[in-house]
């Protein structure tokens, strides 16, 4: 948990600055004479306008408190696709927890890969990408309701939006119609590039060479063979692994040039036990990436949720995602984050500096280090510590898939959409100081309604029972009590 740049805004709002969006709760008119109020508002608003930039005077600023990263999920794969024109760099990581000697992957690839096109990346890169783009929780503090009222709350608006005996093995492979195109040792991995004529032969070869191929894979392999795909087969070389000293499996990277912008998921679904979780990070030059053969839908975002979510954000987000999956009948890819890598607001982690992006395969950054960002850092956002880049756009997609709902491999396209989006949920702390003015009475009345609204929102987003949510909020059951109506004469001589 890291309080970030927006803490400045936090302190100003908790000290009853009108700069906090929350102060709009007070509907009463300003009690300062109008010209003075206007002047005060302008003076206070100006630095914010300068800080917040063009899109909004209020930005997305909040006080970042928690994120829901991929560690929430047990069987999650993470794939990074770096793509520009027809060039793709794919980084694959999974949370394989078993004995490394049991690990093996077979991945269809569109081209014959040479040694230089295969690399092993550091897991920390993907962890950083995950942290940077994870759905986040932010919090705001209500100001003193007796202070100057404010313009409408922008913060409440939706987000603007292994080794083999070579000779004999090759002979056996040929007899099965399998050609070992190349064999490489890269880091802790033994890698084979295979071409095949018949799926049966390929399946037999894989079995004979110690790969546990699930029943039914032959049909899928056959489909890929006929489409002209080759197979990238990797096992862990235990000796190499112990030499290198890694206790976990590092992500594999491949770079290739092909017009196919897709991710083969069908092999992974053969004999799969239940749905699988996939996080896909696309780093592109132009804009957001979407699936062309499945719906890509934005997650609900920007909602105010009860304060107890702060201590249970992981479970809250899992419940929210489950609920959305149920609503969309598990046929949808969810957009969790779409943002220019130059900055973030609020930041769950720093943007990835150019060096890390280059290691992930962002090949168009050569010679771009040191470029200055276009604007000075503002209070509500952080700029890329490397001073750029400005032409890397990150899209984070999250899907839960199985064969029944995702029959076809994922196909993607890059769009020209550069509108920023993040999964973000808002906590608002009520004013706890003393306040005796008339506005305070209105504020307290509305506060009750707000809590009720937050309870309903949380119940609707997560599928939790409304009564449970209210209990956790220490609210009494039932809708918020309607405030007693004021006598008609109450304001007559005010």
């Amino acid at each position, binding site marked *: 948990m890291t309080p970030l740049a927006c803490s400045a805004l936090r302190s100003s709002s908790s000290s009853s600055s009108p700069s906090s969006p929350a102060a709009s709760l007070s509907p009463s008119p300003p009690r300062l004479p109008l010209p003075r109020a206007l002047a005060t508002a302008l003076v206070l608003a100006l630095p914010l306008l300068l800080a917040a930039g063009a899109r909004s005077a209020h930005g997305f600023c909040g006080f970042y408190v928690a994120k829901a990263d991929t560690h929430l999920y047990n069987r999650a794969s993470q794939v990074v696709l770096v793509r520009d024109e027809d060039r793709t760099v794919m980084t694959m990581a999974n949370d394989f927890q078993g004995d490394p000697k049991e690990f093996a992957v077979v991945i269809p690839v569109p081209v014959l890969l040479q040694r230089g096109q295969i690399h092993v990346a550091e897991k920390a890169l993907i962890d950083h990408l995950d942290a940077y783009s994870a759905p986040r929780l932010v919090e705001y503090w209500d100001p003193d309701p007796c202070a100057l009222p404010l313009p409408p709350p922008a913060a409440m608006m939706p987000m603007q939006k292994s080794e083999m005996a070579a000779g004999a093995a090759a002979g056996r492979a040929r007899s099965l119609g399998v050609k070992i195109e190349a064999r490489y040792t890269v880091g802790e991995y033994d890698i084979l590039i295979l071409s095949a004529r018949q799926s049966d032969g390929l399946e037999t070869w894989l079995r004979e060479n110690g790969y546990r191929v699930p029943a039914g894979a032959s049909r899928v392999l*056959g*489909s890929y063979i*006929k489409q002209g795909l080759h197979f990238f087969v990797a096992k862990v070389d235990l000796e190499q692994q112990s030499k290198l000293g890694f206790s976990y499996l590092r992500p594999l990277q491949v770079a290739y040039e092909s017009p196919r912008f897709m991710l083969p998921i069908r092999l992974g679904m053969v004999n799969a036990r239940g749905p699988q979780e996939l996080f896909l990070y696309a780093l592109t030059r132009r804009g957001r990436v979407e699936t062309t053969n499945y*719906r890509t*839908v934005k997650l609900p975002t920007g909602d105010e949720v009860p304060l107890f979510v702060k201590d249970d954000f992981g479970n809250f987000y899992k419940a929210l995602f489950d609920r959305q999956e149920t609503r969309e009948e598990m046929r949808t890819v969810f957009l969790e984050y779409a943002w220019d890598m130059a900055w973030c607001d609020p930041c769950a982690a720093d943007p990835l500096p150019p060096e890390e992006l280059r290691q992930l395969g962002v090949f168009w950054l050569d010679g771009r280090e040191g470029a200055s960002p276009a604007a000075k850092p503002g209070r509500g956002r952080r700029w890329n510590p490397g001073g750029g880049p400005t032409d890397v756009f990150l899209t984070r997609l999250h899907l839960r898939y199985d064969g029944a709902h995702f029959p076809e491999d994922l196909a993607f*396209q890059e769009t020209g*959409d550069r509108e920023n989006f993040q999964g973000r949920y808002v906590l608002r702390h009520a004013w706890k100081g003393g306040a005796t003015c008339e506005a305070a009475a209105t504020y307290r009345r509305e506060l009750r309604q707000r809590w009720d609204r937050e309870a309903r929102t949380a119940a609707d987003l997560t599928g939790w029972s409304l009564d449970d949510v209210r209990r956790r909020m220490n609210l009494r059951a039932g809708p918020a009590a309607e405030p007693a109506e004021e006598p008609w004469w109450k304001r007559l001589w005010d």
Partner: protein
Amino acid sequence: MPMPTPTPNRRRDSLPAGVEESRGHAGHAKAGALRRRGTALARRLAADPRHYQLLVLGSLLAWGVFRLDLEVRAGQALAIVAAALATQLACTRLAARRPAGSAGAAAAGAAGAAGTAWATGAAGTAGATGAAGTARAAGAAGTARPAGAAPPLRFDPKSAGISALSLCLLLRTDRPWLAVAAAVLSIASKFLLRVRGKHLWNPTNFGLVAMMIASRGQVWVSPGQWGSAALFGFLVLCLGGLVVNRAARADVTWAFLGSYGALLLGRAWWLGQPAAIPLHQAASGAFLIFTFFMISDPKTTPDSRAGRLLFALLVAAGAAWAQFALYRPTALLLSLACLAPLVPLLDRLLPGATYRWPRPALLPPERSFA
């Protein structure tokens, strides 16, 4: 709206006006009034295939804006519709200023070509389709006009409306001016890119493909953004449209559905894929809009049935090639745009009667820009 010219499309014969009044059952007066209203609505819908198309596309757009996350922005949709209608109006006015006989080689040439088309159609090669009937009626009206007089040219918002709604449903961009440019380009292409009295490209197809290429990725189409419920409803509406407008050149739609479907199924069978994959590939809103509203555009399809069937087959083959060999997500649009210039050639090899939308006023076909 004035009643359109009688055509075989319409159900006027089966539902003659005033029948209800002559029955004289006082007790059924209210029911009769309701029936009359329903009949009038059905008649109006059936009078011109575009009425039904506008209804379907409009409903789909409303569903997309309010229920699906289609990212159709209301402001952008309004801008597209306004730009399309304004372009239609402006181009109609400009075209009306040119004397039909002398001004443009295009208009003059078109007159001759369309006349020939009508003559061929009247000779009976096109068969008893509603289209041919319409063309005959219109052609007859055209010949009845004194030689050399410029025929009146009326602003007809229906086709422009269909183009605009299709653009709203398909075109995606962050920049509103690109959406407006696509609308202007679509409608203007109808007036400018013409051969033998027919515009070459379906306006929406031309506008989309031209803008996707010219904008270098700033304009795109999202073919996957449709839920299964919406798709099913849309399919029902589309098929309903074929029934309502039974004669409006549905042959090209059926031919395309059959040939492209066969290609998808054949490929899946060859690859050993389950049937769920080709079904999933066809379950796309963009595919349905293309099949029922774009390739079937009677104004840009070949005149003869044989030509249309051949054209549908070529577009299906081109789309499958672009999709599965070139890996283009917008394969359907690209295929149609690349093959549309073949239509004049097909019309020459396999002549037939040029289609005309049913119109309230009888205008010669060569002056039609709808």
